[in-house]
Every structure is written in structure tokens, then in C-alpha cells.
């Protein structure tokens, strides 16, 4: 299996931990892994992306344009900003959470969420939009939005790594006091995405 994944979001949303979890889970399943991160100034609330390449023989960690098999968008606008890396009809998980850049709050720029959603729908039909912020809140903390989204990627079948490997990855790299939170957050994304896929399948059968 070769899966190239792109994670896009806003600095501070926990993308680096998410890409590490994918990497550790993939190694547990015997795959080679490369990841590439944004670390440094952009982490302070700027646009950040993480690249994760599972299997395959590529030497560079950066996923080229049009080559991501799966994209996990942590924030709507940042998903659109990086959508050109997604492959034709690629798999897309989007957190519908909107984080206004300060430029928007100051009235210097516009944030047109409807137009953004529209452009994503045009790019791929294999798209799941979930309110990761609320799910993470229900699981115990809005900070766990990253594991909710990973759960959704696995639960939808978009990310072919098992739930069990992720649980082990959570146990091996996250401090123990956060294990229950992250497992619960992962499972809430996992179940919801699983349900959405099942409903979509049912609709297309009719």
C-alpha cells in the first residue's frame, strides 16, 4: 500500500501530533513512513501543513501537487488553500470549523465559507465534512480535534490503517493522563464517519 496524506490547518491545532500518530501507527503495521512538518514562525497561528507518506519509495517527504490520496483539512479555509495537492477524486475529510484570521477580524479581508465549501465539493465527490470542534468538545476537550479527525479518516475507510494501531500509537506517544480523552475523541470521529459512509452507500443504492 502507498498512501500520501496531507494535513492542512492553522498553527496550534495539533497537526504535528496528528502526523506523528499516523506515522507511528503505520510503522506498527510494517510500513515505511516519511513526514514533513511546518515548525517555526508559522506555528503562531499561521497556515501550516503536514505531509505524511506511507509506503512507496519516494525520498522526499513533501506530497507533490495532485498526488495526495487523502487530505485531512483541520480548518475550512486552510483546506481550500492546499486543495491542489489532492489527487483527482481524492479522499477528503474536512473539519467545518472556521478560524478567522486576524486580517478578517480587522475587516481587511473576507472569509466566504459558503464559496469555500462549494469549491471543495467541485474538486472531489469523496468528501466528508464533520464538526470536529463540537465532537472534540463532547469527548472532553476541543483541543482533541486532531484525534477526532484521525478517527474520521480511519472510520470512513479513507485511511487504511486499523483503529487498533492508532490506539497503540496514542498509548505510545501521548502522556497517559490524555489517553482516555484522545481515545474517546478518536472513536467519536470514527463512528460518525462510519455512519456517514454507510448512509451515503444506502442513498446510492436507492
Amino acid at each position: 500500500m502507498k498512501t500520501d496524506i496531507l494535513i492542512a490547518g492553522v498553527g496550534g491545532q495539533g497537526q504535528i501530533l496528528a502526523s506523528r500518530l499516523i506515522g507511528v501507527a503505520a510503522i506498527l503495521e510494517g510500513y515505511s513512513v516519511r513526514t514533513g512538518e511546518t515548525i517555526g514562525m508559522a506555528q503562531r497561528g499561521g497556515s501550516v501543513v503536514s505531509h505524511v507518506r506511507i509506503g512507496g519509495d519516494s525520498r522526499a517527504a513533501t506530497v507533490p501537487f495532485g498526488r495526495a490520496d487523502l487530505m485531512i483539512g483541520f480548518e475550512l479555509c486552510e483546506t481550500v488553500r492546499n486543495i491542489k495537492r489532492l489527487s483527482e477524486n481524492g479522499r477528503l475529510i474536512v473539519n467545518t470549523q472556521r478560524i478567522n484570521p486576524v486580517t478578517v477580524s480587522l475587516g481587511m479581508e473576507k472569509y466566504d465559507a459558503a464559496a469555500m465549501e462549494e469549491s471543495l465539493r467541485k474538486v472531489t465527490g469523496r468528501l466528508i465534512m464533520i464538526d470536529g470542534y463540537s465532537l472534540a468538545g463532547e469527548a472532553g476537550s476541543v483541543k482533541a480535534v486532531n484525534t477526532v479527525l484521525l478517527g474520521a479518516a480511519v472510520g470512513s475507510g479513507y485511511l487504511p490503517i486499523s483503529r487498533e494501531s492508532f490506539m497503540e500509537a496514542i498509548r505510545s506517544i501521548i502522556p497517559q493522563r490524555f489517553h482516555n480523552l484522545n481515545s474517546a475523541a478518536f472513536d467519536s470521529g470514527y463512528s460518525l464517519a462510519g455512519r456517514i459512509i454507510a448512509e451515503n452507500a444506502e442513498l446510492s443504492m436507492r
Partner: protein
Amino acid sequence: MIKLLMGNEAIALGAIKAGVRVVCGYPGTPSSEVLETVAKNNDGSIYVEWSVNEKTAMEVAAGAAYSGARAMVTMKQVGLNVASDPLMSLAYIGVKGGLVIVAADDPGPLSSQTEQDTRHFAKFANLPVLDPSTPEEAYEMIQAAFDLSEQVGLPVILRPTTRICHACSSIDVSGSREEHIPSGFEKDPRWVIFPQLSYKRHIEIEKLQTALSLIFSKSPFNRVSGKGALGIAGSGIAWSYALDVIRDLDLDIKTFKVGTPYPFPAKLAESFLDGLSAVLVLEELDPVVEEALLEIAANKGLKIGILGKKTGNTPYAGEFSYEIVHKAISEFSGLQSHDTDEPAISPLPSRPPVLCAGCPHRASFYAVKKAMKGQKAVFTGDIGCYTLGNAKPLNMVDTCLCMGASISVAQGIKRVEPDTRLFAFIGDSTFFHTGIPGVINAVYNQTDIVIVVLDNGTTAMTGHQPHPGTARTMMGNISEKIDIEALLKSVGVKWVRKINPFDHKAAVSAVKEASEVKGVSAIIFESPCIALAKKPGAFEADPGKCRACGMCVREIGCPAMVLGKDKKVRIEPSACYACGLCVSICPFGAIGGMKHED
């Protein structure tokens, strides 16, 4: 054992495996995790320190290497500028224990003030440099670098770039740590640099360059493969992109992978150039490999087209990508380079990095801004998170040059514009790094400036490293805390105030007072970085009291504040740190209702 390791972690574990004994450095993106990883994996046999700056770090490491220990010093590319004085002389003096300088370059740049190329520094200093193309190669190279350093008696530079430092690979890190017992310092005239010794050593160094070139022609980090009349040469991450592109285009082409850009492996390069009609060189930043190949081709009288930056085939500025390399190789090999259709996307707002919600720097800048309203004032800035104070709406950083420059640049402006009030903003770690000489200069030369030390008790931007003002060391010890206030007073700054910037009224009045002082005055805005504090809770905006004036957002641009469709402010509870700055701004008392976190 297979582990997922970041390039910087791989370098650290490689150094540990190679038996490194002393590790020093100064934090700087993208290099910081190297030293931190050594400290995290230290079994007690390694001495690790964050030094006060890169020059000091280089000299501490040099002393250790004089004493026969394997030593490593880490920094970012601009840090090497600061350390260049000891670096240049070290080439003449040489080392006994292996000394490896890890200087991380930042093409892009993603987090730096320049796109300088450390491979030039290696050539300038007559020191060998290794240029890894993957994290796993960095792991091999750091170990080889120690051996090479001891073999030739010179420091060796390892020059990873951001895409190596901050990329992770699954790497096999089996094997135990090599034992290298330091022989100790032996008194010898060789350690004392004098003009006569320098002349003799210069002759030796030039001979070593030739020897190193021969050693590198046989190095496993340099390889020639394939056949044909066209050749591709590359180094660093550009080489990795090249291999991916050659695979995707299914090209059968001669290649030259360069892992040691200086001294250039000339013999191996000759075997690569043999029979070629044209070469495409792929390397980020400066045309180092390109120039080396041009020189060899000229010396040998070869009629080969050498294409790269000088011929406009690849860019000088910015980092490379798969796409840039794909285009260059496609054109070079006569294939159609097709531009992919880009999906039509809606216009997007930009998202530059900002000071965090609750950041004390925002309060400090705001206090100075309020106090100087209507006055002719210039605000010089420095390197750190607080450089972000340049963004709207604060707009409080008028200059930023390099580490420590805020205090000295302010003095130059003051000498030309005596009627302007000069404020120099500098963070605590930067103050210790290179800020202090500027303070002494201002006191000595009696220049009227206000120094504003933004003391958040950490080196925040690079990932919260300790420094002399934090009293914590990388060996886990508690040390004597260097008191910035006492230090300023001891060098002759007569007017010094320490204030919490969130005490807005007191902060504004202190700034006003400081600006009237004859000579040098200093304000220390002391408040810890919020990323290190437990989030105390969040404030709420009362929609009943909010009059939708937007003043809070317009004045401080806090990322936790969002204006709704009704133009009333809403505070995102997960982002708000309850700093209270907006509470002191709202003219209608609409913000309050502190909600404590459990």
C-alpha cells in the same frame, strides 16, 4: 529497531552513537531539536548546554575538542555568522577530538532573515561540509563526520536544510554507543594562534583540501550511476526530488549525487562528466556544485553545457519543490512539461502568523503605543516572537535586522534624528545573546534611548528553551539566575523599571516617564509566555453590553476575538487566556465574567 525520527532527532541520535561527549548550541529554527534530543537521551555521559550565543557555543565546543573529546555545536545558518570568528580561526588551529558543527540552512526562507548558504561558509573557512538528502542520510553523515574530523584534524560542518531537519523517516537506530575516552588537554604551542603559526598552517590547510577532495571521491555519500550523454547532478533535498522525478518520468540518465559539496570530489566528478554533452545541476540556494563542475570542465577543456542557476534553468531564491525539479528535468531531457489544471478555488484570506491570544508582548507593545500616541517615535525590533508586533493593528516594529540589533540600530537613528524618541524592543534570550554590548555602547556614548526588555522567561519562538535568566540548565540543574534589572544597573543604566505589562495604566505611565529620561533608560516588561502557563480560564463578552464599536479588535487584534455578523465581539473560550488586556480597553465594560478552567 525502526523508529519514526525527525531529521534533527536522527542527527542527535547519530551523534550519541558516535560517542559525542560535549554538545552546545544556541536555539534557532530549523536546528533546535538536535540539542534538545541529545539532552532527552542523555545517559549522563554527555555534557549538554544551551550557550548564551553561537560564538560562545563554538568556543566551548572547541575547548572540548582540544581536550580530545568528541564535541558537537548546533545552530541555524545565521548563527554561524555570529560564530564565524572562532570558526575561521579553528580551521587554522585544528582539533584533536572530532568537532562537528551542525549549521541548518533554511531555503525559503521559512523562519529566517536570510537565505545564505552554509556550503559557502565551508569553502570560505576551508572546512569540509556534508549535505544530507534525507533524514536517514543525516543519521549516517553525522557519524561519519566525527570520524572524518579526527582523521584530518579539522572541524567538519554538517549542513541539513529545513526539509531534512523537520522531515521524519522510519530509521533503524540499532547499535550501541561508541566509546571515545577524551585524552585530556595537552599543553602545546599548536593551540596558540600567532601570525607565524597561521602562515605555516595555511600551507597545510591547502594541502588538506586536496587530500579531502580525494577522500570524498571515494565517499559513499557521493555516487555516479547510469549512462548516456545527459547527466543530472544534485545535492541535499534537491537530489531527493530529482530521484523521485527520474522515477516518475521513467528516465534512463546518468546521475551524480553530491553529498560533500566542499571540498568537491573532483576525481569522481571527472568520471561523471566523461562522455556527457550536457549536465543539469539541482541544488537549493547558491550554485556551489554548479560552479565546481564549471571549474572542472574548464580545467579539463570539456565542451559540456552545464545548466543550473547561472543559465536560468533553476531559481536562486526560495526552496525547491518536486514541481520545480520536475519542470527543470522535463525541459532538460526534452520532454513536454505539462502544467496541471489547477482547480478553481474561491479567493482566500491570507493567514500570517500572529502573537498568540494572551501573549504579554501584545500588552507591552500596546502600552508603548498608547504612551507615545501623537509623539514622534521610532520602534526598533529584534529577533523573536515579538517581531510579530509589526503586524496590524499593533504596527510597533519599525526595524528588524539581526539578533541584538534593536538596541544599536536605535542609537544610530537617534544620532541622525535627535528629536525622535527611540524605543528598542528586545526579548530576554536575545538580550543575553547579543543585546548587552549595545546597552554598554549606549551608556558609554550617552545616547538617549529607551530599552524595552520583553521578558517572558523563555526562548519562546524556537520552542521554549531555557537561558541565563531562567536559572535552569540543560543538565537539569538550577543555576544562578542572571537578573536583567541588576545587570542593566551595573552597566550604568540609571533609570530601570520592572513592570507587568498587563497592568496597563502603570505600564503606560512608566513608558511616558522613561521617554523623558536623559541618557539610557530601560523598562523590563515581565510576564511569562502563556504557552508555558496553565490556561487559567477565559473571559466572555456580554452581548447585552457590547455596543458593536469594534474597538477591542481594532486596537489589539487578538486572535481569540471574533466579530459576529452583528459586529458584536465574541471571545473563543478555547483560545482566550484571560489576560485581560481587552477588558481594560472596552469603553462599555462589556468584557468580563472570567470562567475558570477546571
